[in-house]
């Protein structure tokens, strides 16, 4: 592993080959906000809240810190007028779905995001994919997945798998930044699982 020297917010940072900007920043205690990132899971790059300005050989562009690999002499700015403006808009877009999500509210304060900027949407889910990826990558069960695409994309439990696997697990629940996951599970449960009374041996 070769040593890589880069600069984040004016601070010299030592990193190793293969690290992302986010990991390098965390190493020196610089906070970059994330929503879809989880250390046990593969980087996903979907929420885009972790975008930062990366300057290499005189070129500046916005990149996702959770994915962008560190390079020698890379100069990173984790805050700028533009970065803040984009983060604010991303938060406002998500708050239209999950206005009560604690994580979003905290970030909204930091970036001055208005939770009422956009009309409220019916779905709570912010599509961070933590539940889907945790179930697939850590538990290797694939009991919850995404269905459909674009603005119709939603999470959904697969009843055939969920009815076997989810009772004793539910480890994805605390990962969810909104209420959506539990709601989706309760729906699946109501529609597909026989009442526990008829299934001796299963936990309440």
């Amino acid at each position, binding site marked *: 592993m070769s040593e890589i020297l880069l600069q984040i917010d004016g601070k010299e940072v030592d990193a190793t080959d293969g690290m992302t900007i986010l990991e390098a920043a965390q190493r020196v205690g610089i906070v970059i906000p994330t929503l879809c990132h989880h250390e046990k899971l593969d980087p996903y*790059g979907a929420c*885009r809240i972790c*975008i930062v300005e990366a300057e290499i050989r005189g070129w500046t562009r916005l990149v996702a810190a959770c994915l962008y*690999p560190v390079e020698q002499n890379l100069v990173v700015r984790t805050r700028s007028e533009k970065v803040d403006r*984009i983060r604010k808009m*991303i938060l406002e*877009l998500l708050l239209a779905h999950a206005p009560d999500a604690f994580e979003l509210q905290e970030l909204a304060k930091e970036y001055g995001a208005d939770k009422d900027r956009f009309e409220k949407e019916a779905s709570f889910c912010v*599509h961070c994919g933590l539940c889907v990826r945790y179930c697939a990558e850590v538990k290797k069960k694939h009991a919850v997945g995404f269905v459909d695409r*674009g603005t119709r*994309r939603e999470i959904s439990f697969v009843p055939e798998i969920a009815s076997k696997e989810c009772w004793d697990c539910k480890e994805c629940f605390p990962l969810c930044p909104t209420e959506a996951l539990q709601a989706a599970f309760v729906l699946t449960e109501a529609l597909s699982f026989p009442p526990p009374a008829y299934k001796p041996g299963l936990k309440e």
Partner: protein
Amino acid sequence: MPLINSPAELEDFRKGILSKRDPNKPCIALCSGSACHASGSGEVAASIEEEIKKQGLSAEVDIRKTGCHGFCERGPIIVIHPEEICYLQIAPKDVPEIISQTIKEKKVIDRLLYSDPDTNEKIIHESEIPFYKNQNRLVFGSNGNIDPKSIDDYLAIGGYSALAKVLFQMSSEEVLEEVKKSNLRGRGGGGFPAGRKWEGSRNAPDETKYVIVNADEGDPGAYMDRSLLEGNPHAILEGLTIGAYAIGSKEGYIYVRQEYPLAVENVHIAIEKAEAYGLLGKNILGSGFDFIVKVHQGAGAFVCGESSALMTALEGRAGEPRPKYIRSNVKGLWDRPSVLNNVETWANVPLIINNGADWFTQFGTERSKGTKIFSLVGKITNTGLVEVPMGTTLRDIIYKIGGGIPGGKRFKAVQTGGPSGGCIPEEMLDLEVGFDELTKVGSMMGSGGMIIMDEDTCMVDVARYFLDFLTDESCGKCVPCREGMRQMLKILTNLTEGKGKEGDIELLEELAEVLKEAALCALGQSAPNPFLSTLQYFRDEYEAHIKEKRCPALSCRELISFHIDPARCRACMICGRKCPSEAITGGKNQIHVIDQEKCTKCGTCLEVCPPRFGAVRKLSGDPVPPPIPEEERIITRKSKQK
């Protein structure tokens, strides 16, 4: 089937095919591409076969069902060789006459020829029709000369000679250098130099490498890759094999949309025949080089045209893009170096090898070399596929080749580059087409879609349309694309429905920035282009929609009204009878009046009102004049006053 084992055997085989063919024997080449097929070439083919049999000419005439000729507006097209007599819009009823007159008697049938709209002069030869005359069909031209299901036809026109050349006369470095020197840029969207992409894969340390054909063309109205793959599949296979040789790949994929059944069929046949001839598979032409090609059918997601999404889909997963901070030519399909080029790019490769990079670079502009195939559609007289050298002006493409705007309407804008492109206004018609030139004016080359719009097109609605398309096609993974487009579409829809408000343009601009800067893949990053370019060139239309609730093009249904001018209405009762919602009152000798409450704005009354009256008008922004009092509605006709 022979297995061809050396370049010499290939040449002998080619000579054998040619020696069996009499160049003077009449041959009817019938366009059987998808567009002509839709306009009835299948029936024409059946009647040609039947008629030839009936007239006892089976041994004396050849029939060749070719791929697309490009002049789709006038299909089905036939070209009779060796004279090259071109007949347009053929119906089965014309066939007996064609066989008895043109084939037997060598007489030209005037009424089936192209007639010049300005001079009424009849044009006999395909190549002299203005639509074709002003093109330079290096890549697409072979379509008309071969039956795509026949490998012998492709060999007859020199097919696979470029492959033989690279395998026996060139090192893989030399092939790469030639392609780099040609400055061939990707025809699929981004315009990335193909040679540099190949080089990256070639230099990547991994032993296993892939070459891939992107045939997931999905822009609304674009079908050039479809027509190439349907009409000349071997050219793409040959190009792909040459690319594989250059980078050291042994396995290739063709990712083709399931919605292109003829392309899927023809490419399967082509692979099978090429394998049987030893032009694909193990030890190609006895050179020791092995290469196989597999076909993968896409399930119809637009985003799968994006390279990383395409590769994810090829791996058997949901087609979602992944971030490309490491390029796919280094880490692509199954994390191996993978060169992905689109159909047209691969089809250019054999030409470059056969004729040399210097030949190729004589076409085009400083930074965009060669030709480009455009699909010319929309409000244009000659709909079809056109191939021109880079650097041709938009004006020449639209007027010289496309024949201008039909119906005496005024040109308004040309949309290039598909949903990620932009609209270019009239004052920029002298722009020379090229990758950088189009990007500079806020549009892009894309894969070559060119949609012509006339004065009746509302530019706000155009932006809404493309955004609607992309919202539907977005994979939904990242927030800017999924949520940003959701909001942009809502606002644009509101504008077209007269619900726009102050600040909407600024909010759209803010959302556009988030998409452009922060979306995960090119679909989202380029999605605001239709909005941004229409705002740049047609801002007044946006403002009219917001401030005056007026649609200047009289197109947005919620913002227009239909009105019958009482001074012009002659009470003919046609509109009243045709109105599907019975919104028109008035009878014989009584001026007709539209009930605005009942009117659904379908426009039927405007269409059916006889032009000599021209009484129905579309209004937008102005209030509809109140209906004239009933007692004033009676028309007294002079002829009946006697």
